[in-house]
């Protein structure tokens, strides 16, 4: 008996040392379904490509759950090496000075070259500090784009609009042809944050929150934004726009069934849409207002980035840096782009996909990346706002009220600005 136990202990110890030969690193993420599988495939590719590091990906549920688990783990000193954090949560982790090692520092320290210019413009600033240094490594990146029901357009005899003015002109014809002209899936991301980016309007003071957390204030009572929602409300009343609540799929469904002419979705939606759409579709950029001077700039990057958590050994950090290098290689980027529908984040990967003829085969896949590569304006680089997930919840609540007739557009934005600014002030106190 004793012999058996000691033998078991010996085997255990032996196997432990053999796996110690490779440095183990962990990666917590918030992706499920097919996207989660692709993460496993990428990790496997990385582990096969080299032997010094062994990467283990762990799914932690949704984006929010991944961030919450990462925070809880950090507080008890059990943090993973890599944590995936979504766009709206970026301020939370970046403002917690000392929670992460900036990706750029990590990569340079590991002896790799790091060229900011290798990344496409739309992804360069969002997860960077105000000097442009990459804090997070952009990972799954998407843009809000407009999907087009080709059948509806043909029937109504209209073209896909570039601007909202063109949409207004086309909407009556589409309605007459029996279609709901417009649906969308996320008013916060598509009609608020990216209203500011596409129309090049300031979203918040302190350089959209990049310069400081102190006294950062929302500028959501901007007359142009109020005008956009007044229009949406008017369009809804006239039957040019339909709203099915804050749930993403309830709105997407109408488009899939071929009942709507345009749907604002994510560049990452097209993989799924290919299977579910009951009619031929194409895609184009998220429209902007021609009347707004300087509009037509690129959109903010959506999706999530990878953050290297602090408090880890140099060896592990080296492995994380190696993995980030691996992840941004054109081949892996192209693989990820094809497998998920998220955009490629480096110029080299984009060129590889072009050379391979991928966009000739699937032109919709190129729309998101092209929109992110549009010229940037002063206000299209990103935003960094504390407690932003909660601010989004306030927006969702007020937008719901606008369309159910419980409040007016003006009152809704006054409320969002007031409650949002209270949250920002609270955040400044926690970060200070």
């Amino acid at each position, binding site marked *: 008996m004793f012999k058996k136990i000691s033998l078991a202990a010996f085997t255990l110890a032996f196997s432990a040392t053999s796996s110690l030969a490779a440095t183990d690193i962990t990666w917590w993420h918030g992706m499920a379904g097919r996207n989660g599988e692709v993460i496993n495939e990428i990790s496997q590719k990385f582990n096969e490509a080299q032997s010094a590091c062994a990467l283990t990906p762990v799914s932690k549920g*949704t984006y929010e759950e991944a961030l*919450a688990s990462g*925070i809880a783990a950090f*507080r008890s000193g059990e943090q993973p090496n890599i944590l995936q954090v979504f766009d709206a949560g970026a301020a939370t982790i970046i403002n917690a000075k*000392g929670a992460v090692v900036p990706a750029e520092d990590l990569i340079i320290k590991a002896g790799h070259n790091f060229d900011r210019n290798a990344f496409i413009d739309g992804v360069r600033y969002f997860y960077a500090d105000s000097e442009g240094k990459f804090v997070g490594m952009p990972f799954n990146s998407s843009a809000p784009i407009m999907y087009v029901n080709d059948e509806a357009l043909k029937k109504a005899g209209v073209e896909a609009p570039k601007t909202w003015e063109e949409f207004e002109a086309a909407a009556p014809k589409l309605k007459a042809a029996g279609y709901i002209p417009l649906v969308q899936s996320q008013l916060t991301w598509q009609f608020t944050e990216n209203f500011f980016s596409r129309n090049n309007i300031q979203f918040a003071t302190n350089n959209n929150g990049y310069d400081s957390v102190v006294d950062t204030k929302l500028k959501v009572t901007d007359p142009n934004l109020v005008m956009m929602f007044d229009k949406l409300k008017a369009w809804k009343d006239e039957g040019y726009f339909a709203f099915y609540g*804050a749930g993403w799929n309830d709105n997407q469904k109408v488009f899939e069934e071929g009942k709507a002419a345009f749907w604002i979705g994510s560049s990452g939606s097209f993989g799924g849409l290919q299977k579910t759409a009951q009619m031929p579709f194409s895609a184009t950029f998220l429209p902007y207002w021609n009347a707004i001077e300087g509009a037509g700039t690129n959109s903010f990057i959506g999706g999530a980035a990878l953050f290297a958590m602090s408090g880890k050994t140099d060896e592990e950090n080296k492995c994380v840096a190696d993995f980030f290098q691996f992840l941004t290689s054109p081949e892996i980027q192209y693989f990820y782009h094809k497998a998920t529908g998220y955009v490629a984040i480096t110029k080299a990967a984009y060129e590889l996909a072009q050379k391979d003829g991928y966009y000739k085969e699937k032109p919709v896949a190129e729309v998101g990346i092209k929109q992110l590569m549009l010229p940037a304006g002063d206000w299209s680089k990103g935003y960094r706002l504390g407690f932003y997930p*909660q601010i989004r919840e306030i927006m*969702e609540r007020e937008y719901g009220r606008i369309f159910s007739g*419980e409040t007016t557009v003006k009152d809704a934005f006054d409320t969002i600005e007031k409650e949002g600014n209270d949250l920002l002030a609270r955040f400044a106190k926690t970060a200070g």
Partner: protein
Amino acid sequence: MTSGTERLPALRGGTATDGRRSSALRLFGGKAKGGDDAAKRVQFSSPYLPYLFLAPQLAIIFVFFYWPSIQAIQSSFYLEDPFGFGSTFVGMTNYIDVLKSGEYLGIARFTAIFTALVTFFALSIGLLLAVKADGVIRGNATYKTLLIWVYAIAPPVAGLIGMMFFDQHIGPIVELARWFGWDIKVGLNYSDTAFAMIVVSVWKQIPYNFIFFLSGLQGIPVAVREAAAMDCRSGFRRFWTVILPLLAPTAFFLLIINVTYALFDTFGVIDVMVKDKAANNPITLVYKVYMDGFRGNDLGGSSAQSVILMLIVFVLTIFQFRFIERRVHYN
């Protein structure tokens, strides 16, 4: 006739005296021994031995209930960055912020209405079904099973099923309501969503109440029923004056359980029904704690809210035991 309660002391050995255990036994045909004092008076050789046996349970209660509660109370007085780098003592600020917020008060109001309605309907429908099932003679096992099995469904799954029934595009209940000219818009219209939440939450809780009421009913001795039947011809009056008072201990126990259910356990149903995005839909206080704490990473504010919730439950429990239980007669 004399009221049922007055006659009670004359009855021996058995209504729902020793509560849940015997109720459950009866339901499955077992026989509970009423008033067997010897079983309760166990002698231990050492005075410390009972504490030793209690220790594992106490340890669990401490680790999973008291310790987190203490932590929540502590962090409710601090403003803290989520990663734990710095926390500032802010006194009552978190509480003041919460209680000053009109939004929070609105959610509290909804929670109160929601809890009252869910408790009322879950109890009354459960009781009605139990009374009816009690009268069924042929095939009553099938009846019981059919009424009980919903309880085996986990709340999120119940929420999912409910959501399908109320789906904007394909929900059968929505289609049905449209026939009557009611356009149910769950997720868009505040009161429609509230309606759907209450229906699903009640539906989920009925079987539980049904089980307890049924076993309570079956515990009422035949002699009492017969005596009552001789005294009074009206079935409803018999129920009201004899059966219901005898069911009171069960009903009181269920009242507490149902209030806690509506306050806390409906979380899964709500989460599924609002699809992760509360927007302008009704939510309960517990869901708000989750939103601010786990999604918004505002630990101080969310802790303050959970302490408030703890106080509410505390007050409610005291109220129930002091004022309602007085009217309940345990044989």
